């Protein structure tokens, strides 16, 4: 039995077969049932109740005003601010913090009548690729709770994969939506940088962060994207260019499209099972009428080191406001310096501290030119290289992750963990849209196909992914339900 998608639920609501309150209650029960995965940090019961009632009223009284997400439950990552709802970014330092405002993406969903039911677990301040860096414990992968769901939006990927909610919101700074989508066998979309307002997203790396959806269908992902995308006066980096109606792109097929395969992304380092699944997916794309051609993105090699200078540099400043003065953890000491040291020393986990130190170092006087400035130059080269590729192809296709979900604790050194995102983070450096769709299994674990498009051509990415999804059934595969409780999160 495949759990319904958001579009299917919308149909049920309209026909009167169910109510928003029912759907919220069922989502709540399903989330409880998978609580061993530790994917949920907290439930938003009173907000869900209010929103469900409001949606029910809209559906009953002004059904023509009810959009496709009205009355549909969803979950969102613990880095998105909602007024009055505890938001901790997976960190001890923000424990108990209730934002005094609601961010733009959430505001738009709430205005559309969507019903938030839970806040999902994630790596602390979105820093990680396995969800093992959360201060509130790791998250289990619904396909094998002993394995990681990917990260940093691991909780958001897991709740959708387990079928508890039809969609969720995550954030993607270097692959934090696409990689967990790949590892959990769901669809995850990172829009073009500037397409979705970052107002209300607790910043990790401001020039890379982007909010995006997880769902079990490309159509759902496109629907959520349409609801949250568009210029926002509160975010100066949001684009004023009108959002194309991406739903129009779906169903057009890919006949005659030129798809590039960056050979550096498939050359080496892929697990054999991932390679096999991807090659099958490439054949399928050709069968659907696309032309696949090899392209070269040689600077990709420098992507990882570039990313690990720019992202930590920005985070070292972004996390400075977590100083214990106005919100969150405050450990009082007689001197100001000791108060800072104790609060931040106890409030942040090891990975966050590592990145703050990396970034602080990279920006230090005497090192700035060698690290930060050089990284910015390489970043420009990477973006230019993508642009050149898009002069000849409509989109790029490649694996999302070189490997499938790994066992918890398997990657103990930071560098091997950082390598998980080697195929996704260049996309953030260039600000491009990217999606991961399920494309098979390796050793019983999901594999994801990544589609990358030119800036602001989010519709092209969704179109390719949709055509592939229509032609295959990987997205409909379900993990064992209920997931085997093998002690995840305990």
């Amino acid at each position, binding site marked *: 039995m495949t759990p319904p998608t958001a579009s299917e639920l919308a149909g049920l609501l309209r026909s009167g077969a169910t109510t928003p309150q029912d759907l919220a209650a069922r989502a709540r029960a399903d989330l409880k049932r998978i609580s061993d995965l530790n994917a949920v940090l907290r439930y938003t019961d009173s907000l869900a109740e209010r929103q469900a009632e409001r949606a029910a009223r809209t559906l009953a009284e002004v059904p023509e005003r009810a959009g496709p997400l009205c009355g549909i439950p969803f979950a969102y990552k613990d880095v998105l601010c909602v007024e009055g709802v505890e938001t901790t970014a997976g960190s001890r330092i923000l424990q108990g913090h209730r934002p005094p405002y609601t961010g733009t993406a959430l505001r738009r969903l709430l205005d559309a009548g969507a019903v938030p039911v839970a806040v999902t677990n994630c790596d602390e301040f979105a820093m990680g690729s396995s969800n093992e860096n959360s201060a509130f414990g790791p998250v289990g992968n619904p396909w094998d709770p002993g394995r990681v769901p990917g990260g940093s939006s691991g909780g958001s990927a897991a709740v959708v994969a387990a079928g508890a909610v039809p969609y969720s919101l995550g954030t993607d700074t270097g692959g934090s939506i696409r990689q967990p989508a790949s590892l959990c066998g769901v669809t995850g979309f990172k829009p073009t940088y500037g397409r979705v307002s970052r107002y209300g997203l607790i910043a990790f790396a401001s020039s890379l962060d982007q909010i995006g959806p997880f769902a079990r269908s490309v159509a759902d992902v496109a629907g959520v994207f349409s609801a949250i995308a568009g210029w926002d006066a509160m975010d100066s*980096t949001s684009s004023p260019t009108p959002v194309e109606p991406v739903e129009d792109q779906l169903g057009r097929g890919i006949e005659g499209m030129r798809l590039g395969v960056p050979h550096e992304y498939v050359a080496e380092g892929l697990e054999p099972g991932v390679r096999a699944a991807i090659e099958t997916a490439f054949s399928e794309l050709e069968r659907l009428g696309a032309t696949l051609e090899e392209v070269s993105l040689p600077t990709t090699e420098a992507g990882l080191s570039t990313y690990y200078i720019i992202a930590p540099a920005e985070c070292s400043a972004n996390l400075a406001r977590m100083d214990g003065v106005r919100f969150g953890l405050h450990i009082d000491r007689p001197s100001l310096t000791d108060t800072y040291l104790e609060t931040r020393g106890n409030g942040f986990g090891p990975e966050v501290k590592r990145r703050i130190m990396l970034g602080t170092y990279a920006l230090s006087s005497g090192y700035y030119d060698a690290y930060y400035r050089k990284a910015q130059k390489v970043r420009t080269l990477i973006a230019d290289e993508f642009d050149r590729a898009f002069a000849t192809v409509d989109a790029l296709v490649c694996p999302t992750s070189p490997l499938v979900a790994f066992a918890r604790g398997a990657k103990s050194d930071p560098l091997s963990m950082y390598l998980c995102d080697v195929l996704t983070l260049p996309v953030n450096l260039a600000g491009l849209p990217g999606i991961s769709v399920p494309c098979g299994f390796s050793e019983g674990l999901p594999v994801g196909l990544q589609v990358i498009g030119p800036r602001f051509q989010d519709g092209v990415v969704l179109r390719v992914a949709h055509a592939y999804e229509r032609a295959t059934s990987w997205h409909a595969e379900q993990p064992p339900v209920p997931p085997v409780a093998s002690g995840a999160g305990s």
Partner: protein
Amino acid sequence: MSAGAVSGLTELMQRYEAVIGLEVHGQLLTESKMFCGCSADYIGSPPNSNTCPVCLGMPGVLPVMNRKAIEYTVRTALALNCEIPEHSKFDRKNYFYPDLPKGYQISQYDMPMSEHGWLSFPVDGEEVRCGITRVHLEEDTGTLQHAGDILQQARSSVVDLNRAGVPLMEIVGEPDLRTPEQAREYLVRLRQILVYIGVNDGNLEQGSFRCDANISLRHRGSAELGVKVEIKNMNSFRAVQRALEYEIVRQGRLLDQGQAIAQETRGWVEAKGATISQRSKEYAHDYRYFPEPDLPPLQLTADFVERVRAGLPELPQQLVDRLQRDHGLSAYDAAVISAEIEDARAFEALVGAGVAAKSAANWLMGDVARLARETRLPLQRSGLGITGLAALIGLAERGRINGPTAKALLEELYVQGGDPVAVVEARGLGQVSDEAELSGIVDRVIADNPAAVSDFQGGKEQALQRLVGGVMKATRGRADARLVNQLLRERLGR
């Protein structure tokens, strides 16, 4: 040198040359803060009430640039003869302090909004030209209050973020100034310009106009620069001058003794009349500037810059020229009248109301200036106001009241207000200029004062004043003094 200068200053300055550069911070008179919609007029609000998630630095918030702040900064840069590059950007200046909510200040580092300007002004009859390195835009911090003198030793401190995020312009001057007097005059002129172009209220006491100074000494004739000391906490023009004088003596004496000057930041302590060390170079911050990723780079088109230039209000020097040219004021009067924009506006309003230029200038520079100082009420906000003063001067000019009456009325009405014409009418203060009426009184006074009459006729000129006084007394001060003089002289044959 100013009176009360530190002893030894003149002698030291004969041997050492001071190299002084000033950094001025001016809050912009925008309606809202630099990155959010909170009011920029924060003074008087209860602590932390003039705040929002953005200026509180809450997790997840983003800055949105105040366009007016950009326009005001460009206006300032143009008034200071700066170049405005087409491309500039904002940067994060990173440091931890409780008055800095985000842990970084959004400022401008290597691509400021303007550069390469200058300001020129006379000091002791010589024209001094000081380069302006740059004018850039940043955000102000909150304020702290400590139970104790300094944060590190305070038992407790409280933070007020009402001021956090108010647009702040930084004007960095070149080290082209050579004496404390020049430094003071530079500040006076700079403040005057900012107030004239409407971007800053020029209030040093409340800190909306603040100044830090860098000073080093070198032997006269030497081209090499000495070790630089930064001075903070000066909140009046006088404090700047005194602190610099103090520093010249302090550094000069150390150099005389063959000691090295420590590169450090020192604070001016008004009560002690001295600077004290605050922070040495080893503890200097590494601010780790990097481009602000939350704000796109700033592009100022030539078109925009020209529009701002075209809308630039009259600058002080232009006004001084115009007052001389159009109103026939002397260079001195024009300079005094234009020193404070409120005086200049009052002058123009008086002239507009029909008062003769010279007379308007005399009144403003004389008794009105004194009353404004004594009552701490500028004319515009006084009870009398521009219209009242214009009416009062009108009465005096037309001979309806005499000089002493006008003066007395000004004193009386300046604060409490009132229509001078009505008051003169009601109290019968009108000047007695009727020759027939005065003749009778003059005759009586002559008859009553034979001693004074004979003194005067005997050659004692002052004796006449006793007789004039007698007439005045008889008319309750209202007699036309000129006419009384004339009548007395006619009668007494001198």
